[in-house]
C-alpha cells in the first residue's frame, strides 16, 4: 500500500539510514508506477497470483521481485530486507560479509520429528529436498544479508514457497500461511548460509526492545484494552491518535505516522530532503536573468527572479525546510506562504535534471 511505503520512506530519511532505498513493485504493463521522493522504484514481474498455481499468496511476490532485481541489476553489497509494514527507528549500519547474514528471531518455527526437524505434516518435503537432516535457522525478516548470499537463496525460496503452499492446500487448515518463512529457512540451510539471530526488528507487542526496525503488522492496543489502530483497516492518510495507544512501540509507530501525516499535510515531509545540484550543471547570468546549461539537454533553461533565488540556495547544504525558512525570511513572507511555490520550482528543477533530492 502506498501509505505504508511512504511511511517507511519517511522513517528511512528521518533515521538517516545510509544506502539506497529500493521499492520493488509488481507492475502489469501499462499500469502507472508509484512515485517516491527518496526511494527508487523498480518494476518487476507480478507473481500475484502465482503464475502456475493461481495461488493468491502475497509473499510470492517478495521472493520473485528480489530474484528479478538481483539478477537484473547485479547488486553487490549488504541488503536490509524488510517488509513494507516496517519503519526505521534508527539506522542499521552493519556491513555484512558473505556467509554471515543476520536476521530477526522467529520463535514460531514449527518443531517436531519431520524433515528438517519440522513438525508433522511436512513429510512431503522428503520428495523435494535432497538433504532433510540439516538444521533450519529460526529466523524471519528483517534480514541483513550480502547480495551474493541472497542470490543463492532466492529462487529456491520462491520454489519451496510454491511447493509448501501447494502441498498443504488440501489440509484442514488450508495452505500454510507461514510458508514463506519456512521456505526461506530451508533455502538458506540448503545453501549452507548460516544466519545469526540479531535484534534487528521487533513487533509492536515487544515492550522492551532496542531493535532499529519496528514491525506494525498487528493491531495496536489502546490504553483501555481496545484496539487503538489497525493497519489492516487503515485508509490512506486518515488522521491517527497516538495518545489512545498504550505506551510502547505501538504508540511509537502511531506517533511516527501522525508526525508524517502532519508534515505531509503541511508539505513538510520534505524537511528531510536536501536539494543537490547535479554535476556538470552550469549557470550563467545575462542582463540579470539566470540561465542553466544542463548536460544532456539541447536547450538552455531560463529562470525568473524567484526561480533564480531558489536555485541559488539549493547548494546541497540546506534541507528543504531550511530553504523555506531562509526564503521566507529574505522576502519577509509569513511562515509557510512560499512552501508550495518553492516545491513547484524544485520539482521542476529535479525533473529537468538540474537537481536531485537526497536525504539530509
Amino acid at each position, binding site marked *: 500500500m502506498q501509505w505504508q511505503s511512504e511511511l517507511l520512506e519517511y522513517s528511512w530519511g528521518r533515521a538517516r539510514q545510509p544506502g539506497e532505498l529500493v521499492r520493488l513493485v509488481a507492475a502489469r504493463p501499462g499500469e502507472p508506477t508509484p512515485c517516491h521522493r527518496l526511494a527508487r522504484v523498480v518494476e518487476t514481474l507480478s507473481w500475484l497470483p502465482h*503464475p502456475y498455481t493461481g495461488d493468491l499468496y502475497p509473499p510470492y511476490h517478495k521472493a520473485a521481485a528480489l530474484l528479478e532485481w538481483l539478477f537484473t541489476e547485479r547488486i553487490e553489497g549488504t541488503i536490509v530486507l524488510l517488509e513494507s509494514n516496517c519503519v526505521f527507528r534508527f539506522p542499521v549500519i552493519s556491513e555484512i560479509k558473505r556467509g554471515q547474514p543476520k536476521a530477526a528471531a522467529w520463535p514460531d518455527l514449527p518443531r517436531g520429528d519431520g524433515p528438517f526437524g519440522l513438525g508433522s505434516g511436512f513429510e512431503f518435503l522428503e520428495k523435494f529436498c535432497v538433504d532433510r537432516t540439516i538444521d533450519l535457522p529460526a529466523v524471519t525478516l528483517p534480514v541483513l544479508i550480502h547480495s551474493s548470499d541472497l542470490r543463492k537463496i532466492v529462487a529456491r525460496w520462491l520454489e519451496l514457497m510454491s511447493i509448501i503452499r501447494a502441498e498443504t492446500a488440501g489440509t484442514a487448515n488450508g495452505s500454510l500461511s507461514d510458508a514463506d518463512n519456512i521456505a526461506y529457512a530451508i533455502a538458506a540451510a540448503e545453501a549452507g548460509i548460516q544466519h545469526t539471530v540479531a535484534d534487528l526488528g521487533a513487533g509492536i507487542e515487544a515492550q522492551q526492545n532496542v531493535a532499529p526496525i519496528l514491525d506494525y503488522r498487528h493491531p495496536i492496543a489502546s490504553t483501555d484494552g481496545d484496539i487503538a489502530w489497525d493497519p489492516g483497516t487503515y485508509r490512506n492518510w486518515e488522521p491517527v491518535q497516538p495518545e489512545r495507544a498504550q505506551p510502547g512501540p505501538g504508540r511509537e509507530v502511531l506517533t511516527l505516522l501522525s508526525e508524517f501525516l502532519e508534515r505531509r499535510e503541511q508539505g513538510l515531509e520534505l524537511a528531510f530532503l536536501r536539494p543537490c545540484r547535479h554535476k556538470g550543471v552550469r549557470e550563467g547570468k545575462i542582463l540579470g536573468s539566470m540561465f542553466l546549461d544542463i548536460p544532456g539537454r539541447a536547450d538552455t533553461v531560463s529562470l525568473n527572479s524567484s526561480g533564480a533565488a531558489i536555485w541559488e540556495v539549493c547548494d546541497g547544504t540546506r534541507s528543504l525546510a531550511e530553504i523555506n525558512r531562509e526564503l521566507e525570511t529574505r522576502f519577509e513572507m509569513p511562515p509557510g506562504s512560499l512552501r508550495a511555490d518553492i516545491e513547484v520550482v524544485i520539482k521542476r528543477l529535479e525533473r529537468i535534471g538540474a537537481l536531485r533530492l537526497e536525504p539530509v
Partner: protein
Amino acid sequence: MNTPRDIQLKIHLAGGHEHTVTLREDAPELLVLFTALSTPESGNRFVQLPLDGGKVACSFQTSQLVSIVSEPPVVMELHKVPELGKVHNAEHPTSATQLRRPRFVVIDDFLSPQEHNELLAFSLISEEQFKAGTITSYDPETRQNLAILGFGESVHSRLVQNRLLIWFPLLAKTFGMPVFPLAMVESQLTAAGDGHYFKVHCDDAPDLPRVLSCVYYLHREPRGFAGGDLRLYDCIETGGSRRPADTFTTVEPVANRLVVFPSEEFHEAMPVRCPSKEFADSRFAVTTWLHRAACPNPGTLFGWGHFRCGVVAPQFAAYQGSGGNKS
C-alpha cells in the same frame, strides 16, 4: 584453411584500466581495436567486448585505448574496418546484413551444493546407462558424447526442471520475448569425455519447437578435464537466412552453472581433454529445452507436478517483451 587461433589481448585504457579478453584472430573487433590504435584519425568508435566468459561486458570508446599486448603476436592488415553490427554482403551488396551478438544468461549456483552433488552422484553411478546417442539423431562427425535416454522422466530431471520453471518468466523477459505456453520440457543428461565435442549447431528446427535451451554443468572437484567450453556464436542475418559468424563468446563449464540461450542461437561444445580418460572425470551436463505449445493446455502439469505451465498466466499475457538482451 587453418582454424583461426585464439588471441589473448591485454587492453590498456586511459586512466590505468586494464582488461584481458580472448578473441579469435578473425574477429572484427580485433581489426577495430588495432585500427583505432594505428590510425586514430579514423575516428572514435564505441566497442563492447565480452569478459569473464561472457558474464561481463567491457564497453569503451576507442579514443581511450592506450596500448594492446597480444599473445601470440598478431600482425593485422589494416586496410578495411568492418562495421560492428553490420557486415558487408558480397553476394547481395544492397541487402542489409546484420551481425547479431548471441543472447544468453549465466546463472551460477543454480542448485544448492547438495543438489549438485546428488546429481553428480547419480551421473557417476549411471555410467552403464550412458549411450552414444541422442534423442534426435547421432552423427559422430558432428557430435561425440554420451547421453542417458529417458533421463527426462527421472526425479533428477524434475529437480532441474522445477527450479528452471521458477526462472522461466524472468528468462523470457530478459530475452525480450513474451512468456509462452509450454508444450513440454525436454531433458537429457550427457557426459563428455576425452575428445568429445559437439560442433556448431542450433537446437531449434521447424518440427522441433524448442524456444529456450538450458545447459546445467556438473563435474567433480578438482576438475578432471580441460576444454569443453560452450561457444555462442555471433549470428549473421541476411534477409530470412541466418548463419554463424566466426566470432563468438565463450562460457566456461563451471560446476553448478546454468547457461540459458534462445534455441535458435548457434553454439558449439568445444572438445574436452580428459587426461585420466576416466568416466568420472567427464564434463557432465543436463540440457533442458523448453518447448512452446501450439495450443495452450491448462491441464498439463510440469516439474514436480504442481505447476500448470501449459497456459500463460494473465499477468504475463499482456507482457510482450521489451526486446532487451542480457549477457
